[in-house]
């Protein structure tokens, strides 16, 4: 009966809020009221409180307001048979608990700054297995996977399974279905994370198993992640709690698995999650709440066996997940993409500077190849001893009536993540600098080289059936074969690069829209042209073209660019017409090549954000991975918060890393020569291309003139540097007006 749930959860709510009030009082006695509190590297303060209440908690003093709010939210207890209605009170008590949890965690960050490891990976050696709140960089990086569908949702697991084997079974099943697994709380001191480590399962963001924290309060990090996604990608304004929660219900497919006995505090947390539309599926016999309404389907489903837990959970949440059924001895799926093969686990490897490793995909005639054929030319892993290296050439031949040469690089690029999807195999790099590491575990399971071919064949058919009919894969492991293939491949790379490099926006009449993020950023419409790749960095013009051929009704639609309204700023009549329709009148035009005048809209997915620096008469850009301050006065996360959600914000524009060195990059505002500041790491990443592009612009040492954080993080600090170096931006026309 729901009454028992309500009774327990409301009781739990009182316990939690009182406990946190006590902790807060103690903290006030220990620290000054103006002591900073918060989670690391986020522009969203305490994100659940900020997103739902619009309250910015920055200091210990600021905590009072949301904590008082939580206290006032606590409803009367449920009394007797003839009780008053309790659904609303139950949800309020849950919400009050969650606000209190977030404050409790903020206090923990203050009092035990080393409790959590601010990293994507655990540090087993140092015994740091709890990662705490995901910072904004992680949230955006992983958020994109929710956007593009490579992660269909997340399972928040609280407690522990009866034994490590069951924990492993459940979590691996979620991994196979590509879900993230957010873990918190313990059952009598045991956590799922402990169990997984015991069962030799790698945990961390890379394997999608996130050890948030050992207490129920750390479950709040999962909700903070979800709400930030709503703000960052959905453009929902902080304080607009109705929209945030509806967004979560409709678009974030998350749910709670309660493993083990459910106490009052867990009940309160579960009740809180129902506000998000996140149901709870429990392995114990707790009262069920089946009618729908707040969640899409049931609210609490109980007594589910561990074998059925995963299937039941996704069903209750109304989520369709797919498991790639590929005939190889190892598990396979996106969840294994980020898994590492560390030195101690390594069986053998190819590439990585030790041997040559290259991959090359080539279009073939229909008659030339045999579909599904995998040839291993040379010794297999089974012939290798532990710790050995070997050369590797992966030669993929693809034929199909709709296949075009232009699709070769797109298919070839899939190799990286597809090989990574195999559990126990790690793939780094691409083309002729690939690196494949094979773990002992994979070999123990029976992995052979042939399996790489099996995976590529199966996945190519699955994902690209519209354009290909036949796939044949040859794996060369003898040096002379690999060298031969590498030579062929390099010629092909050169040919492709030149073709793409020389393709200009003027060359084509058709651009492509990209609305891939619309499930998350409903008002944003990207337009991708040859010289303006998608701002997420994932899609260039050629990708969009291929995507359209593969799926004509998909997120990439051709746009006839039509009349050129402004060749300098890059405005096209056909594009304007399209975005007016696609944004339902919200945006009626934008410019491709300007950040000053009506720039393109920006979703939360962008790799970099450029901003004007008026005193330097130039611009800066910052990429997602850089967490520090920038001369425009905002960190990346703040910029993304201001810009995201499909707005056109003059003075700022989101763009991909690659776009910086494309010839049309803000050419309407003066082009790359305007660039006066970039984070050092971004400069290094783009070094080669920046040098090349600088040369083209007649400024070969441009890269050295661009300031970075080692020079300064304010305009005042970097201006003398620019003057000293004679940065071209200083002598250009004024940026504004």
């Amino acid at each position: 009966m729901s009454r028992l749930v309500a009774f327990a959860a409301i009781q739990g709510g009182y316990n939690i809020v009182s406990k946190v009030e006590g902790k807060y009082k103690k903290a006030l006695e220990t620290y000054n009221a103006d002591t900073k509190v918060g989670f690391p590297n986020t522009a969203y303060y305490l994100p659940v409180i900020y997103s739902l209440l619009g309250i910015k908690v920055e200091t210990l003093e600021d905590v009072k307001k949301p904590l008082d709010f939580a206290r006032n939210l606590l409803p009367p207890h449920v009394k007797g048979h003839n009780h008053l209605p309790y659904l609303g009170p139950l949800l309020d008590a849950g919400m009050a608990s969650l606000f209190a949890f977030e404050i409790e965690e903020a206090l923990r960050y203050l009092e035990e700054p080393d409790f959590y490891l601010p990293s994507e990976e655990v540090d087993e050696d140092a015994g740091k297995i709890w990662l705490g709140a995901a910072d904004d960089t992680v949230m955006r990086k992983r958020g994109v996977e929710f956007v593009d569908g490579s992660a269909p949702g997340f399972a928040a697991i609280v407690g522990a399974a009866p034994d490590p084997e069951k924990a492993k079974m459940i979590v691996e099943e979620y991994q196979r279905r590509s879900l993230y697994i957010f873990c918190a709380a313990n059952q009598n001191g045991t956590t799922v994370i402990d169990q997984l480590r015991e069962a030799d399962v790698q945990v961390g963001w890379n394997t999608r198993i996130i050890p948030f924290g050992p207490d129920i309060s750390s479950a709040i990090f999962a909700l903070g992640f979800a709400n930030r996604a709503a703000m960052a990608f959905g453009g929902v304004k902080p304080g607009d709690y109705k929209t945030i929660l509806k967004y979560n219900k409709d678009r974030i497919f998350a749910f709670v698995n309660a493993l083990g006995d459910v106490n009052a505090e867990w009940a309160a947390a579960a009740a809180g999650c129902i506000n998000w539309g996140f149901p709870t599926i429990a392995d114990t016999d707790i009262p069920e709440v089946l009618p729908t309404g707040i969640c899409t389907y049931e609210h609490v489903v109980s007594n589910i066996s561990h074998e059925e837990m995963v299937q039941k959970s996704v069903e209750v949440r109304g989520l369709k997940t797919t498991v790639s059924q590929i005939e190889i001895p190892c598990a396979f799926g996106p969840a294994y993409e980020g898994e590492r093969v560390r030195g101690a686990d390594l069986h053998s490897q190819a590439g990585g500077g030790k041997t040559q490793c290259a991959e090359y995909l080539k279009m073939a005639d229909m008659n030339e190849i045999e579909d599904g054929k995998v040839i291993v030319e040379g010794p297999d892993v089974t012939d290798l001893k532990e710790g050995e290296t070997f050369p590797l050439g992966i030669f993929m031949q693809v034929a199909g009536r709709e296949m075009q040469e232009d699709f070769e690089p797109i298919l070839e690029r899939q190799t990286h993540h597809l090989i990574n999807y195999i559990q126990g195999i790690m793939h780094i790099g691409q083309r002729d600098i690939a690196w494949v590491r094979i773990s002992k575990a994979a070999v123990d399971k029976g992995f052979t080289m042939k399996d790489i071919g099996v995976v590529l064949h199966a996945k190519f058919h699955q994902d690209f059936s519209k354009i290909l009919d036949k796939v044949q894969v040859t794996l060369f492991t003898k040096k002379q074969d690999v060298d031969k293939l590498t030579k062929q491949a390099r010629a092909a790379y050169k040919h492709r690069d030149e073709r793409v490099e020389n393709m200009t926006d003027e060359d084509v009449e058709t651009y492509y829209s990209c609305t891939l993020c619309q499930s998350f950023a409903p008002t944003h419409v990207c337009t991708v042209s040859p010289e303006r790749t998608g701002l997420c960095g994932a899609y260039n013009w050629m990708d969009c073209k291929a995507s359209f051929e593969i799926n004509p009704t998909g997120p990439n639609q051709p746009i006839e660019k039509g009349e050129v309204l402004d060749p300098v700023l890059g405005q096209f009549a056909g594009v304007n017409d399209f975005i007016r329709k696609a944004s339902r009148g919200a945006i009626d035009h934008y410019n491709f090549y300007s950040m000053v005048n009506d720039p393109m809209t920006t979703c939360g997915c962008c790799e970099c954000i450029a901003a004007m620096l008026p005193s330097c008469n130039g611009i800066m850009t910052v990429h997602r991975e850089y967490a520090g301050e920038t001369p425009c006065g905002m960190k990346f996360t703040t910029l993304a918060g201001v810009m995201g959600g499909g707005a056109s914000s003059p003075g700022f524009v989101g763009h991909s890393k690659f776009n910086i060195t494309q010839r049309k990059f803000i050419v309407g505002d003066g082009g790359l020569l305007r660039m006066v500041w970039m984070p050092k790491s971004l400069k290094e990443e783009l070094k080669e291309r920046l040098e090349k592009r600088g040369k083209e612009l007649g400024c070969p040492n441009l890269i050295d003139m661009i300031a970075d954080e080692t020079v300064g993080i304010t305009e005042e600090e970097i201006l003398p540097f620019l003057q000293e170096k004679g940065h071209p931006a200083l002598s250009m026309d004024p940026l504004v007006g």
Partner: protein
Amino acid sequence: MTEEKKAKLKVAAKAPKLADPIAATIDTATQQMIVRAQQLGIDTVFDRAAQMKPCNIGLQGTCCKNCAMGPCRLPLPKGGIEGEDKRKGLCGATANTIAARNFLRMIASGAAAHSDHGRCVAEVFMSAARKETDAYQIKDTNKLIAVAEKLGVSATVEVDGETKDRDIDEIALEVAHKALNEWGKPEGELIYLSRAPQPLYEKWTKAGVKPRNIDREIVEIMHRTHIGVDQDYKNLMKQGARCALADGWGGSMLATDLQDIMFGTPYPLQSEANLGIMKEDHVNIIIHGHEPVLSEIIVAVSQRPDILKYAKSKGARGIQLGGICCTANEILQRHGVPSAGTFLQQELAIITGACDAMIVDIQCVFQNLANVAKCFHTKLITTHPIAKMEQENVMHIEFDEHHALEDAERIVKMAIDNFTNRGSEVMIPRQKATQIAGFGVESIQYHLGGTFRGTYYTLNDNIINGRIRGLAGVVGCNNARTRHNEAHIAVVKELIKNDVLVLTTGCNGIACAMEGLLTPESAGIYCGPGLKEVCETVGIPPVLHLGSCVDNSRILLAATEVIKAGGPWKDLCDIPAAGSAPEWMSEKAISIGQYFVSSGVYTVFGVTLPTTGAPVFHNFITKDMEKLYGGKWDIEPDPIKHAQLMIAHIDKKRKEMGIDKARERVLMTMEDRQAIER
């Protein structure tokens, strides 16, 4: 035959026929009290119903006494009429004209009762806004701001280009002016019509029935039904609809809104119902009638420590308030004051011998109360200038909002003083039932998801998925021509058994409370599996008490919220819902029925309708009217059939909306998610 025997027979022949308590009511407390009254030789409405038959022609609606050439009586022949209906009055008025005119005059009277109640509230509201009285304040500022918005009164003000919150007193004053203006404004239409779903508003526009102001539509009925004016039943009914809408979307709705602002918007609370709430050792004050304006103050005064001390000084252990009729509902909803009984129990409350004072205001107050009170120590106090009684034992203490506290204090003290005058003949039945009342548009929304997710969508979702089959508004009076509460309870039980969630007001609410249907645990006993599950999830009874008869406007607004929250429906007539008044008797019920019908609700009445003598007119309101408004009248005295008609209608609507089949569980893929509407 001996003289003695003859005398005996004579006495027996002359002794008036008495009511059979079991046949008169299903409620045991009421049965006991009927027996008690009969023992004491006091006649009650139940006895009088046994003694006097209703006029058969009036019952059919075909008696015209609108001029002195009549009354013209046009009864329908027993076998009906074949061929042309040649019946007509002296002026030639047909049965249709006569029945329609009578029907309209009932609407006018009902609308007048609700709306005059509303006007009185609006006037007190004005005094409160002007701060002319200490007794009344703006209690619920959130509601004030919400109502202000609906009345087109700005809640913000521009100061030097900055938007600021406007002074609450200023808002209240403008709301008071805007509201009072609705009764007699010279131009335009009622502001609240715009609260209706757009398609309904358009229907009203098309049909030409948008009320201009509240009073005018009542006046126009009196004009049009005068001899020799409107003699086309269809045209008459247009005005009937317009006047009723001026009640539902005008006078009643304003009464509810302004009462909420002054007295607080109801939130769920626990209380009790039936005569057993009266306490032998307490001063029992029964408040009866319809307006909460005075009773609010009586509630406040009777809780004051000095007054309680005074009561104790007279030997009482405290003061027990109890309500009857809609005053009961008003003070129940806002303060949890228990309901002593329904309309038909008003005499019985005095017959307990423990009623130290009965305070009455307006509407549904039996004149016979004075005769009953005469037999006991009970002080019967009328308080309203428009509602006095001729009997000498009735006191009149005219209530005036400017001296509300003094008036209330005087009345309560008089009751306390009277406690010591009680005779030995006290007999309070023990029956009482717990009830959870206090629902309203706002509190239902809250309880459907709390502060953050509260929305009618939760309700809609369960209607769409079929756990809740539909909604029913079951309302209205008691009628001594039927077994007290039998139809109320049978209809409601049949509905909830079939998974129909019931919203109740008026005496139906009190009847359901007495039967224990307003408790969450009744869901487990009486409901179908779907409704039971929803009730258990939300923690609500399967029957939600929305208040008094002016609060039927809450049902209209709750239904409007259902539309707004989304689903396959666009108009009130699309919702799988139906209305019912199983034991109606007052003219107000006819007005309510007509505004429900004109708002698109299929509305079934029990007992009978005063239209049966004019089959063509009857057919018009029970069939053709649906084409105009989407709703129509129906009549079915048998409670089970009555409920089944409603359920059949609900099922018809479910089919029309495409929700008659089990909803599939949709497992969303990424593509599905990308296709989600913004």
